């Protein structure tokens, strides 16, 4: 009896850092298995929106729901901590700068949280590490430390680490922006694979071609509001709004 609509819902999200209003009444719905790309100029609030979804940057006002449960519901501190830690296990996040744990091997990066939070045995943990690192093509490097990996390899391990918690939703914040151009594709391939497996994903990206090829919907954000949203064919090829058009034109020039 799962409700396939409204799998992820952001309702009237408003966020201020001091006097700076970064998100201005943003609402967003993502259905189960959908992939949504968020594009927009730097500083428009894309990261803040993504980080509000798992409460890394708590909203000033507004609600975030995942699969029928409010992520940022108001609870006394201790209860909230317990609740949010459980919710975060269901929401994988991939950062621009990977944020792998440098003192742990790829295997340990992947298994640390499942061992700690789900009480996996060493054997189960090893099986999990094998499975997840294989999925991202990093099995041969299972016992390497992050310092021994390239950027693209690090990011693939970071994706495996997020997947190891079996999340219902994956958030990607410019996962390929910090990579040398020749390493971008290996990470994109992994994300494509997740898309084929119908992982629900919200992807903040500057790569319009990639966004167009995997996502069901594109959101264009500027100055804390969603200016335009729709299927990639429309938003990329035939945007309604001038601001979207200007952004895409500028971006295309920048890419040359």
């Amino acid at each position, binding site marked *: 009896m799962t409700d396939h609509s409204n799998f992820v819902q952001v309702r009237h999200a408003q966020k201020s850092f001091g006097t700076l209003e970064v998100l201005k009444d943003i609402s967003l719905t993502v259905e189960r298995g959908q992939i949504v790309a968020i594009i927009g100029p730097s500083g428009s609030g894309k990261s803040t929106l993504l980080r509000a979804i798992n409460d*890394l940057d708590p909203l000033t006002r507004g609600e975030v729901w995942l699969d029928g449960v409010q992520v940022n519901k108001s609870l006394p501190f201790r209860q909230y*901590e317990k609740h949010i830690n459980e919710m*975060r*296990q269901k929401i994988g996040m991939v950062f621009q700068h990977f944020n792998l744990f440098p003192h742990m*091997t790829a295997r340990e990066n992947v298994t640390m*949280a499942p061992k*700690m939070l789900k009480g996996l045995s060493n054997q189960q943990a090893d099986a999990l590490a094998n499975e997840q690192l294989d999925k991202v093509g990093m099995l041969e490097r299972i016992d390497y430390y992050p310092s021994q990996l390239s950027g693209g390899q690090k990011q693939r391990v970071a994706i495996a680490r997020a997947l190891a918690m079996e999340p219902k939703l994956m958030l990607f914040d410019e996962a390929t922006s910090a990579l040398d151009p020749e390493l971008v594709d290996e990470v994109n391939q992994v994300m494509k694979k997740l898309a084929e497996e119908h992982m629900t994903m919200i992807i903040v990206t500057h790569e319009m071609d990639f966004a167009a090829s995997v996502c069901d919907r594109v959101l264009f954000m500027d100055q804390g509001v969603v200016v335009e949203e729709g299927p990639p064919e429309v938003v990329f090829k035939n945007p309604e709004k001038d601001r979207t058009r200007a952004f895409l034109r500028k971006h295309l020039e920048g890419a040359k």
Partner: protein
Amino acid sequence: MGLDFTVIPKYIDIILLGCLWTIAITVAAALLSFFGGIFFAVIALYAPAVIRLPFRLFEWIFMGTPLLLQLFLIYFGLVQIGVDLPAFVAGVIGLGLHFAVYNSELIQTAILSVDKGQMEAARTVGLSRGQALRKVIVPQAVRAVIPPIGNNMIALLKDSALVSVIGVSELTLSAQRAIGASYRPFEFYILAAAFYYVINLGMEWVQRKIERRIALSR
């Protein structure tokens, strides 16, 4: 009366035994100062004020007063309130806590300079703040300050000579005893100095081993 190093073999047993005590007290106090330093750092940064403020006072006592005085206080002073510690234990506690406070300073700074993204990544997979500190932040912070902690441990070795004043038969006190019997201060102080130097080299060797081991995981 000139120098005569031929007296040394007669008293070498005392000196070697003194060496062993020096090594024992240094290793024990070093371990206490290492784990104590981590513990103190976490308290100083994250404990509620009711714990943190008394702890500051404690920290001030250990940083702001002479180690010699602290040793006297622990060994002779605590007896009056019914805590009668063996000299070795009193020495380990005194040296260990003293250097734990110094290590704590290093580790606090290191904890604060661990990249913010590390805590975020740990929280994102569902770890609590405490779990993230334990598994992610503190291990990285400690790795970052192994070299300066190593320097503190060398200082600890040298300061271990102070526990001779509470009667632990470590290297310095052993040398004095040999001198008392032989009236050969120069020979035995030089000998003790040589042994300190050798122990020092041993500690530097251990430190290099540790640094090499963690080189990749930083």
